[in-house]
């Protein structure tokens, strides 16, 4: 059982939770994730990046977006309650070094996993150009935290409701065109965003790391559900990743694999709606 210490809503569907997990807080490094489950018998296993950790307090923080039943249920839990299953830290930590100038690109909820990596890169002496973006202003998260560690900071929204009206690839391209070009970039966000970030940096030969959030069951290499094509190799995101060379990842295959259960989830969602309608009817008839 893992106790929830604190909960905070960051944007419309995005929440931050601080959890009591001293062993994970001690061991975790930037880039690693946990898996949690809200019911030991019937719950599903959800991988979530560790957004931050406090060794002294023995706590870790997770940031998640409500996208389905389980994340919805999690968002309804409060400080003092406990999560039945939480395991981690999983995945290979980010390779942190002093690379020089690093462009960090975060899209939507992807800013959450980007933050601890950017922090570690900053601490290792890198100059950080940080670009964050979202569909609209109310979906932006961690703006102040990212700004605080950036040497150069760019915010954009798809609809122009805040910052520059652009997709993140626009400023990324401009940064790549500079002389000298950046030494490295790291892009985390929706799969389609990561794909286009990798396409943007490819002509400039700027090494681009991406962090993948594929379907997973165990998270320890046992099931292979998370496998992706990386160049000529098949890699398991849970143990070999989650970070890979974005220029080598087969994003199209990854995106189709992410949709493996879309029809079933849609059905479950509709069932859920039907049930809610039925429950409402019952209430009315009482």
């Amino acid at each position, binding site marked *: 059982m893992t106790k929830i210490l604190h909960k905070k809503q960051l944007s419309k569907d995005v929440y931050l939770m601080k959890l009591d997990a001293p062993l994970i807080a001690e061991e975790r490094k930037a880039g690693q994730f946990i898996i949690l489950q809200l019911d030991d018998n*019937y719950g599903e296993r959800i991988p979530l990046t560790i957004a931050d950790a406090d060794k002294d307090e023995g706590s870790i923080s997770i940031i998640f977006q409500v996208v389905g039943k389980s994340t919805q249920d999690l968002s309804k839990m409060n400080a003092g309650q406990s999560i039945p*299953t939480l395991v981690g830290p999983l995945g290979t930590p980010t390779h942190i070094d002093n690379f020089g100038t690093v462009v960090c690109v975060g899209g939507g909820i992807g800013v959450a996993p980007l933050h601890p990596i950017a922090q570690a890169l900053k601490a290792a002496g890198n100059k950080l150009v940080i670009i964050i973006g979202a569909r609209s202003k109310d979906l932006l998260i961690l703006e102040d935290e990212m700004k605080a560690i950036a040497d150069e900071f760019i915010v954009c929204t798809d609809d122009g409701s805040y910052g520059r009206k652009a997709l993140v690839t626009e400023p990324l391209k401009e940064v790549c065109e500079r002389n000298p070009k950046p030494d490295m970039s790291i892009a985390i966000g929706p799969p389609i965003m990561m794909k286009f970030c990798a396409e943007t940096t490819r002509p400039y030969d700027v090494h681009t790391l991406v962090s993948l959030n594929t379907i997973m*069951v165990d998270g320890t*290499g*046992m099931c292979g559900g998370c496998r992706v094509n990386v160049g000529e190799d098949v890699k398991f995101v849970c143990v070999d990743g989650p970070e890979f060379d974005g220029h080598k990842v*087969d994003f199209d295959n990854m995106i189709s694999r992410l949709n*493996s259960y879309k029809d079933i989830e849609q059905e479950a969602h509709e069932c859920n709606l039907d049930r809610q309608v039925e429950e409402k009817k019952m209430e009315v008839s009482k």
Partner: protein
Amino acid sequence: MSNLSNEEIQAKAIELLEEIVTREEPIKPRDRMKIPPQAMPHQNEFARRNNLDEVALGLTMEQARLEAMRCLQCVKKTCVNDCPVFIDIPGFIQYIADGDMQGAADEIKKVSLLPSICGRVCPQETQCQQNCTVGKALKDVDKGVAIGRLERFVADWERATGNIKIPEVKPETGKKVAVIGSGPAGLVVAADVRREGHHVTIFEAFHKLGGVMRYGIPEFRLPNDIIDQEISTLEKMGVEFKTNFVVGRTRKLMDLIKKDGYDAIFVGTGAGLPMFMGIDGENLVGVFSANEYLTRANLMRAFDREHADTPIYQSKNVAVLGGGNVAMDAARMAVRLGADNVYVVYRRTEKEMPARVEEVAHAKEEGIEFHFLRNAKRIIGGENGRVKAMECLKYELGEPDDSGRRRPVVIPGSEFTLDVDTVIVSIGNGSNPLISQTTPELEVNRWGNIIVDDNQKTSVDKIYAGGDIVLGAATVILAMGEGRKAAAAINKMLSDEFAAEAKNN
């Protein structure tokens, strides 16, 4: 398999047993040989396609006694020598023949803590039963004394009494042992080490205990309550369990000794790295490792669509690649999940299949089609990157290979296509690298299996290993045998230390 109904089987058994026990003179070996092998009562093959209930229902009391009377009580006990944990097989069988079930249970438990599991999933036909004199005389290994079924009967009998004896635990020694993984090897080590009075903590990565017995073997072969029962015995002995704990990640292996003060460690993490074919289309939507498919259905309860949050692929036509027990489990699970057609595609013939004969027979009864001497060449995708078909090649048997089995040789130009929407790859497991990667001092071979000596000791002091992480993919009972050896070595090391400390004080 018997064509008689369960009721008819039982009626015959009652009649025959009555006749034997009312005889004047004692039963002679010749009479024993005349008792027919007792058929296992089964769940109906149509009904069971829609549930996860156990298929083999277990012998009745009358059947068990008759089967036990078939044992000749040989002087040279080949069965005992062929048992990885050396159960006194004729000994416990004699108790059953005499109707003393508690005596039989006590006899088995002297050496095996997990009889209800072994009785169900051990490959007896290649172990204890393989050289049974009765089977030899009848020229059919399947007609040998059904040792596994008798073992299961005794264990189920004891469980039904609700009064399972808890093994005695010696006074606390103050020594601490960490067991990594709660599969068959780990559970045996925990029991054997705990009995000597050492504190034992089992670390398990998953939220449920039992390892492959929980996530891999389906409930229609090994029900969860049976695993729970065996684990509750360990709990009552004072074994401590830590679930959701990935050694190598949550805590480094060496830190268990350096920071947490464990005096010895047993690594029994299993063979958890699924192998794939390396063919085109293997990452299409609808291609799964058997591990993933079975873990979703078993551990995550996806079979129970109404309650489970974990989805499982909805399949109409399924191809399972491979011929082992795991392939049978996956194919039979696919049937239960509602697939219309399930094909097992295996590149050799039925004779070379590593799966147990009983499991293959069950699969056939459940309508699974076997394609022998066939193998996948590539998987063909359709809409949205989903599996549409599988192109296969035909094979013939050539010269024997290193394993002694005749090597399958491809027949050029023999391509044909199977219309499937799901492919389950079940061609074995590599060793999980999590612990070896984070413990560089631990020596592994080129396949990543941990190297151990005759006492299961690794290259690092105080660290022992056993089961699939050492053997590569093997069986539950072989893992238990390794666990037993490791436990003996750990107990010896700790008792030597304990004696030395006592002397110094």
